[in-house]
Each structure stands twice: as C-alpha cells, then as structure tokens.
C-alpha cells in the first residue's frame, strides 16, 4: 500500500544556528526506516517520467522498489548501472528541475524524495558493502581523459569497464575538480568525494595529478604517445568579473578564489593549514547561483557577521537549487534581490569599504527567457561591506583551445561538439561538461562523460 502523504519524509538537518558556525554536513541523511517510508510514496507508475528527467537515465522506480523492500545493496546496483557517483548526485543534483520535477506525486503535494533516497542508498553501500573483485578483460587500447572532475571521472569509469587503459590528467594536486575545490564540505563532505574517486581508481583508472594539459603536455602529444582517443572535461574554471570600478581592491575575491582557499587549501583550518583566507565582518556575495550560496554560507561559517547575496534579478530568477536558497535563508544570509553593483569603494589603504548598488526593476524577458533587470535611476546607495565575493559565473579555461590546433570553439570559449557523440572538430578528441556547456551541473557533466565514453568505444571498436 503506497504511502499517500503529501509531504516527503522530512530530512534531519543540523539546526541552522548551530550549523552556520561549523563545516559539518547540513543535511544528515535518512535512516533505514525513513528511506523505506519515503520509498513507499513512489507509485511505480507506468511511464516513469522521472527517468526521462534524469540526465543519466537512472532507473529510478526500480531502485526505489528495492529500497521499499529493504534491499539497499540491490538498490545500489540498480543506480550504479547508470550513475557512478550516487553519493555525490544525491547531494548536489538540482532534483527539482530533473527527476523530482517530473514526478507524478508532485502534481498534488511534494514529489517523491528521489535525491534523498539516492543519497541514503549510496551512503548505506559505503558503510556496509563488502569489497568485490572486478575482473575486466583488457582490450589493449589506451584513452586519455583531461580533467578529473565529474565529466572526466565518469568517462574514465565507463571506459575502464569496457576494457580500456585509462589515464586521467589533473592540473591541480588533488583529483575531483569542482567537487574538491568548489563545493564546500558542509554540502559535500570531501571524504565522500575521495571514496567515490577511489572506487574508480580501484577499477584501474590511473590519475596523474599536477599535469596541465596545454602546458605540461598537449593533446597532440598525447595522441602521439599512443592514446587512441582523448576526452576533454576541463570544466569552466575561468572566473568572470563584473568589470565595474574597484574590482581589484583588497578584499575582493572571485568565488573561485574564495572557495578554493577554503575547500581545496583548507583555509578554514588556518593557521594549522598555511593558506589564509580573510573574511571581513560584512560580506557581499554578488550572484544567486549555487556557487554564490556556497560562498555566502562559507563566509558566514568563517565568522562574518552579516552576509548579503546581491542579485540583479528577483528571487524567481535565482539559478540556485531551491534547497540551497532555503538553507542560506535559514542560516541568516540576507538577500538583496533586484540590486546591481555599480562600483566597489575602498579606504585609504586600498581595502574595500563599501559597494555602491543600484536598485533594479524587471523589464521584458531577455535572450535567456528571464525578465531582464533595468536600473531605477537615482536609486543608488552604498552597502556597508568590507569583503566582496564575485560569483557571477565562470567560462572555460582558454589553455586547451589555445594549444590544440583544429579544435573548434564558440566565441565565448566553449568547445563545439556533436551533441549525440560529444565528438569535437578534431579527430579522436571528445569533450563534455562545463567546457562545452559553460558552468552547469555535476550531473549534466556526468551525462556528457558517459555519452562520450559510449561514442569512443563505438569508434574504437569500429562498431
């Protein structure tokens, strides 16, 4: 008998006023009982709209059925037929726009908590599963993967299972890409990222850190070295700035710099870890995507008294996941919607002293389909802040396109691919993830990595 409750089984969370002072995970995860109770809300409907909403097509009702029956390892096996990183996706996917957004139960009441169950199943597996030997028959061909983020890891994981020798080249000293340097510990614990990466390494994937493709070695050199195909999943690492006066003042960070200092370099443990991060008393984060929420909530945890989100559109247009917006509000982040920064002002020593902001009103929809903000003349005011974090997006790093002849790219830098196969204009070179789409989501990047792996296999096997 289905559980007909209109609401999801509530997710236990740390109290907002406790958690906004620590870096422990915010959402604590379901218990066995909660997961089984939530699983009973799934109607196992015929046309499974949720599966179509998932970029990697996880057989959602099939795994939920196993959860409902208490067969959590079985559920894990079902998920991992399609998704190599369930513990991560269960935490960071924008489910409301994907699987859960399509759920029939969402028409009246809340959709089934698919993300929460996915997370539970992955965590249960990590805590309880026994190691299993995997025997993969090697086919003697080697493939290179550029970038050890979600797209690269997924592509590597798929290819190794098909018998290829796979080497992933990572520019930083630690694998994981945005999962390591970008998303904070309280949203995605780093030991969990490590375990997911380790599971791919156990299948035989080699990860070479400290290799910057485009500098340490080029794609052409990889091909000469005998790699039959190269997958580029180098992400969107180049931070955008506002191009307003004062952006080089002391106390202005890109979100990338701020989050990298805290996450990758463990700035929150300074001086035990020697990379410092300076957070003032009053912080303005510009932008309202997931990265902006991460930066704001991190600043709060590092001791900032007032943290503002300054966004030129309204809440409706904010690109962050609903849960992130909700968590940020609970934690005391102050939202300044319809406010656009005009200039950053500094004191006599060059440190940020305030940010000049112009209030906005919404006009006609723009190219993105969102109503475009228009400045309200004469509404300028100074927001009293001493730190500004710019979180208005990233573009692909130009290193690879500058050093790879024959690789066609968009004007804004994205690599152009055939969307069916992820093939680029250069023979044997595939690409996917943020380097193709511009900053998007972990799961979309994983979907692209998977698609490319299938296409690479087809090409190399002459299918």
């Amino acid at each position, binding site marked *: 008998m289905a559980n007909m409750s209109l609401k999801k089984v509530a997710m236990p969370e740390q109290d907002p006023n406790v958690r906004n002072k620590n870096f422990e995970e915010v959402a604590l995860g379901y218990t066995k009982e909660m997961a089984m109770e939530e699983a009973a809300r799934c109607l196992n409907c015929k046309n499974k709209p949720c599966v179509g909403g998932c970029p990697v097509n996880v057989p959602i009702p099939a795994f939920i059925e196993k959860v409902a029956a208490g067969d959590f390892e079985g559920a894990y096996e079902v998920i991992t037929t399609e998704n190599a990183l369930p513990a991560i996706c269960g935490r960071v996917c924008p489910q409301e726009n994907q699987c859960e957004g399509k759920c029939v139960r969402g028409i009246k009441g809340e959709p089934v908590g698919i993300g929460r169950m996915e997370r539970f199943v992955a965590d249960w597996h990590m805590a309880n599963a026994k190691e299993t030997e995997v025997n993969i028959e090697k086919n003697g061909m080697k493939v290179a993967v550029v970038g050890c983020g979600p797209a690269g890891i997924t592509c590597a994981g798929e290819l190794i299972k098909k018998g290829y020798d796979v080497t992933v080249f990572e520019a930083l000293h630690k694998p994981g890409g945005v999962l390591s340097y970008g998303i904070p510990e309280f949203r995605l614990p780093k030991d969990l990222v490590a375990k997911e990466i380790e599971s791919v390494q156990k299948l035989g994937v080699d990860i070479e850190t400290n290799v910057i493709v485009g500098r340490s*070695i080029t794609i052409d050199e990889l091909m000469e070295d005998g790699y039959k195909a190269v997958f580029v999943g180098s992400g969107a690492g180049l931070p955008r700035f506002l*191009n307003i006066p004062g952006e*080089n003042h002391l106390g202005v960070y890109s979100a990338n710099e701020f989050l990298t200092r805290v996450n990758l370099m463990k700035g929150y443990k300074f001086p*035990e870890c020697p990379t410092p991060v300076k957070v003032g008393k009053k912080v303005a984060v510009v932008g309202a995507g997931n990265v902006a929420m991460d930066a704001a909530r991190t600043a709060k945890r590092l001791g900032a008294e007032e943290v503002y989100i300054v966004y030129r559109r309204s809440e409706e247009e904010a690109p962050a996941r609903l849960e992130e917006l909700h968590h940020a509000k609970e934690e005391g982040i102050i939202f300044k919607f319809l406010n656009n920064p005009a200039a950053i002002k500094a004191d006599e020593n060059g440190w940020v002293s305030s940010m000049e902001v112009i209030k906005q009103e919404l006009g006609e929809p723009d190219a993105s389909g969102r109503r475009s903000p228009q400045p309200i003349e004469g509404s300028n005011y100074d927001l009293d802040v001493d730190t500004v974090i710019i979180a208005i997006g990233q573009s692909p790093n130009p*290193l690879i396109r500058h050093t790879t002849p024959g690789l066609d790219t968009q004007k804004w830098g994205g690599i152009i691919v055939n969307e069916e196969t992820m093939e680029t204009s250069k023979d044997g070179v595939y690409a996917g993830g943020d380097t193709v789409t511009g900053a998007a989501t972990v799961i979309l990047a994983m979907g692209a990595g998977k698609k490319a792996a299938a296409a690479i296999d087809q090409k190399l096997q002459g299918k």
Partner: protein
Amino acid sequence: MQIPCIIKRRYFKKEVYVVYKIVKKQTLNQAVELMEIHAPYVARKCEPGQFIIIRVDEDGERVPLTIADYDREKETVTIIYQVVGYTTELLSKKAEGDYVQDFVGPLGQPAPLHKCDRVIGVAGGVGAAPLYPQLRKLAKMGVPVDVIIGGKSAEFVILKELFEEFCDNVYIATDDGSLGTKGFVTTVLEDQIKAGVKYDEVIAIGPLIMMKNVVKITKEYDIPTMVSLNPIMIDGTGMCGGCRVNIGGETKFACVDGPDFDGFKVNFDECMQRQGMFREEEHECRIGRGM
C-alpha cells in the same frame, strides 16, 4: 578529511613514477637557496620566463616560483628562492635526496624574446634567478647582453659568475658599496644610458619598487622595458583570479597572460597594494605554527 595520496604519477612515455626529488641543494647566501628538482613534465617543455607552483608538504600552500634553469636531459628544473615566509622556511628544511609534495608547470607565457642590437637586464636580489635564463637565451640568439645585478651587500649579489659567461658587461650595485657601485641598480642603468650606450630593450626583474623605478627611467629615455610580476595566486592556471593585475587600464591574470608584461603599462602601485593582502596572516601563520 584527506583525499588519499594513492595517485599515480606516471611520466610521459615511460613507466616511471614521477616524484619530485631534490637532486641538488645549494645555499647561495644567508637568505637565498637553490634547488634542482626532478620534474620531467616541466623540464621537457619549460621556456625562460615561465614559472612553476610548488607545494612542500600535504596541506601546504601553493607557491609560485619563476624557473631559474632547466636541464632537458636530466629532466630537472632549478628554482632559486628567498627564505622569507612560512613555506620557504619549510622548503629550506628539505635536504638533497628529499622530496617535495607537488611541483607543477610550466605555467605562464614564455618571455617574448626577440633579436635586436643590445639588451640590458636589471636584477634586484633574487630576481637575478628568473632573469638568468632569459638573458642566456638572448645571448644564444646572438643578441649582445649586459646585466646589472643589485643586492643589499656583496653577499646578496647572486649568479654573478653565471652571467659573466655570456654577458659583455656585468655591473654590480650594492646598498653598502661592498661590491660594485654603492647605490641602486637604477643609478647604474641611468649612468650607462647617459654615457651613450644604446639599449633596444631592458628586462627588469626584482622587487616591485625596483621595477617601478627602472620603468621611471626607461620611460624617460623611451626604452621598451619588460618586467616580471609575481603576485599572490593559488592555482596558476587562470582559475582563482587572485593574481589580477592592471595593465594599461585592463585587468589581466599574471598566471596566464604573464608573468612578463610591458613595464610602461603596469600599475605598480596597485600591484604593491595587492601584494600585501595577506601580510597579517603570513605573520600569524608563523606564530601559529611555532616558527
């Protein structure tokens, strides 16, 4: 939690694990040391002007250092560093035969060196290190080169003998007059120009204030001048944007657009201000970790 270090580092074309071994260590003076480190990926491709990022130990800072020399055969890269802060002190504790955690590069653009009639290099302190491969390459290209090396006192003048191998003239300036001219490198430079020596280009590498003062003079005589900037950065690949510098009113990232820039266009005052962003923390880190 740490991501475990079971990461393979297998070098291009060879089944050799890359570990960054210190194959040579040398003390140049009481504050400056030289290390030659086995780093095949960097040694194979690097060019004068480029830099590397080093991390001494797990959890360590990422510190950019300009490449002082390289040996493609031995697959080693030489760095010369001043022991000034927490991380360089930690590095200084390492001995020959030890390893560093991470060593990545080459980063940045190679220096834009081109053929001309005469170039003079101006080095302040440890700036002589990155200047050395640039002038040597110019000399190999057949360009006559001179150099001015500056330091607090005789002891702080480094690489003099190495420059003498290919420079027509090696001038020295020390603050206390213990070697060469008593005074600044800028004084020596201006004397040469006034004496009628024709330079097509000046390459100045050293403290920001020195480079700023060199540019003040070369602007006056209209001699194109390249400077090398070394701002605070984390990744060195264009990701953090911490190294942004103002070049002719435009924001550039020193890590990907530089580190060498047209000295006439650099906003040195802003560079100096940004350099000090974490000064208090540098201090606190040393106290916090008992150094």
